[in-house]
């Protein structure tokens, strides 16, 4: 028997792996010391645990543990990377290059920096959600200090050509930051091979706890520095003050360790399940895949079911937890800017559903989801005036819709 509801919103957050949770518990109740306390065993134990976890966290991205700055999550890591570089490298230039489909933590940090005098280029993506290396090459100017391009997109799962971008930045002496929140633990990421100078990631997207993340800051070739955005006790080599979240860090470390061991087999298994789900749903009439079909995370798919509105659809599949790019699910009443940036009609953006599988997803759950979504789409199309018009051959673009 499968347990309902089914959780397929794993790009939003994941369940903490029980092995991670087990590793964390002693640090709440017994070994609760402050990792910065040098004068007693409580502190030493905590410090030891943090050191060990930091090794694991570094290893999953091919870094050295000295290059890991612990933060509260990827939002903070992104802010620290962008704002910290802006301040630290002000003498070198003020131009940043990023992409229109980045996470809000990048886009809004850029908006903030623009108010402080930064010049930011927001590059558009193609209709498959991909950025071309040539676009970045053309955008680099003498005053460019940083290029920030996400590793994999949170709404589409599309993987950007990070290695090529990294090589380009290196060649031009420009720093390269990547928000790898969705990629780390799901696909191999290597800061050396990918020529990455700064990298953000977070524990809760990879079966770790919420509220802990890291920023990788390269120490050699070149040595990169960021200006602290949080002042205080000078923790994390002065780049991020604040008593370390020992339990969170221990869990993050364990999550990285498990991911390193299981990523390959898990990715292969999830790809098969994801493809099964995707192929079955795309068999429906007027269902479209959003984003590049190949360059994509193995556990994510984003599909638009034309003539059906996303939130209405989610209500019809209440036993399956997913998310939608529909405006009706957002406070701003604007459909997903990521989907709009692919050049998708607003109408298709409203009709999109993102499915994100996890380590815990079973084939039975996927079979159930296929049936559930197919039935709901069919039912809602019977209720949809747009579907009726489509079936009658009426071009929806020819209708004068009332202003809203």
């Amino acid at each position, binding site marked *: 028997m499968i347990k309902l509801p089914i959780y397929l919103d794993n790009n939003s957050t994941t369940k903490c792996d029980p092995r991670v949770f087990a590793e964390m518990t002693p640090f709440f109740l017994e070994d609760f010391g402050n990792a910065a306390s040098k004068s007693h065993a409580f502190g030493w134990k905590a410090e030891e645990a943090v050191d060990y976890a930091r090794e694991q966290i570094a290893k999953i991205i091919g870094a050295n543990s000295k290059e890991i700055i612990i933060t509260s999550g990827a939002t903070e890591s992104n802010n620290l990377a962008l704002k910290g570089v802006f301040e630290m490298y002000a003498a070198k230039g003020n131009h940043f290059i990023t992409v229109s489909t980045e996470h809000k933590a990048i886009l809004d940090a850029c908006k903030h920096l623009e108010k402080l005098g930064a010049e930011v280029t927001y590059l558009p993506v193609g209709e498959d959600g991909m950025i071309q290396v040539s676009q970045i090459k053309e955008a680099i100017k003498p005053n460019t200090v940083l290029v920030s391009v996400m590793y994999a997109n949170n709404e589409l799962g599309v993987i950007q050509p990070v290695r090529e971008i990294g090589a380009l930045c290196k060649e031009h002496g420009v720093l390269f930051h990547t928000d790898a929140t969705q990629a780390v633990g799901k696909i191999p990421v290597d800061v050396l091979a990918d020529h990455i100078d700064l990298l953000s990631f977070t524990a809760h997207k990879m079966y770790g706890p919420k509220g802990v993340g890291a920023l990788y800051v390269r120490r050699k070739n070149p040595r990169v520095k960021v200006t602290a955005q949080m002042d205080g006790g000078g923790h994390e080599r002065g780049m991020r003050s604040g008593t370390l979240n020992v339990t969170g860090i221990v869990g993050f470390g364990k999550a990285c360790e498990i991911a390193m061991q299981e990523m390959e087999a898990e990715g292969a298994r999830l790809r098969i399940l994801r493809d099964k789900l995707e192929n079955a749903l795309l068999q429906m009439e007027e269902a479209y895949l959003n984003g590049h079909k190949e360059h994509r995370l193995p556990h994510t798919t984003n599909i638009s079911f034309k003539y059906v*509105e996303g939130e209405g659809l989610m209500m019809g599949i209440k036993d399956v937890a997913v998310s939608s790019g529909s405006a*009706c699910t957002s*406070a701003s009443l604007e459909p997903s800017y990521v989907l709009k940036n692919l050049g998708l009609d607003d*109408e298709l953006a*409203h009709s999109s559903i993102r499915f994100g599988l996890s380590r815990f997803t079973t084939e039975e759950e996927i079979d159930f989801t296929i049936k559930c979504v197919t039935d709901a789409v069919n039912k809602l199309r019977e*209720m*949809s*005036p*747009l579907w009726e018009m489509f079936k009658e051959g009426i071009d929806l673009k020819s209708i004068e819709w009332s202003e809203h």
Partner: protein
Amino acid sequence: MAYSEKVIDHYTNPRNIGTLDKASAQVGTGLVGAPECGDVMRLQIQVGENGIIEEAKFKTFGCGSAIASSSLATEWLKGKTIDQALEIDNMEIVEELALPPVKIHCSVLAEDAIKAAINDYRVKNGLEPLELEKSHH
């Protein structure tokens, strides 16, 4: 945000889904909203000789609250005269369905659809369309 039981009920068992003959002089059709906005409602009324709405049908592309608002509207319309139908206020729909503030516009759409259907009926029958105060979107 959780949906109210009444929204769930109308969503799960929508009343009066369907299509009436748009060409008939007895039928008024209101099509409001826009696909780009994520909500389109089509509401139709069929008016009898005695001036009473004897049939009402809808189809809606939109969220659960929009579907429920239009389903409820068709229920309320049946058996009313045109004048009575014109009195249906979106806030009554909000109250009946316990819609949260972010879903008020779904009820506004239903009210607009009712008025648009009535106007279509009036025009077909040689009457002036009513001046509709532009509702608060």
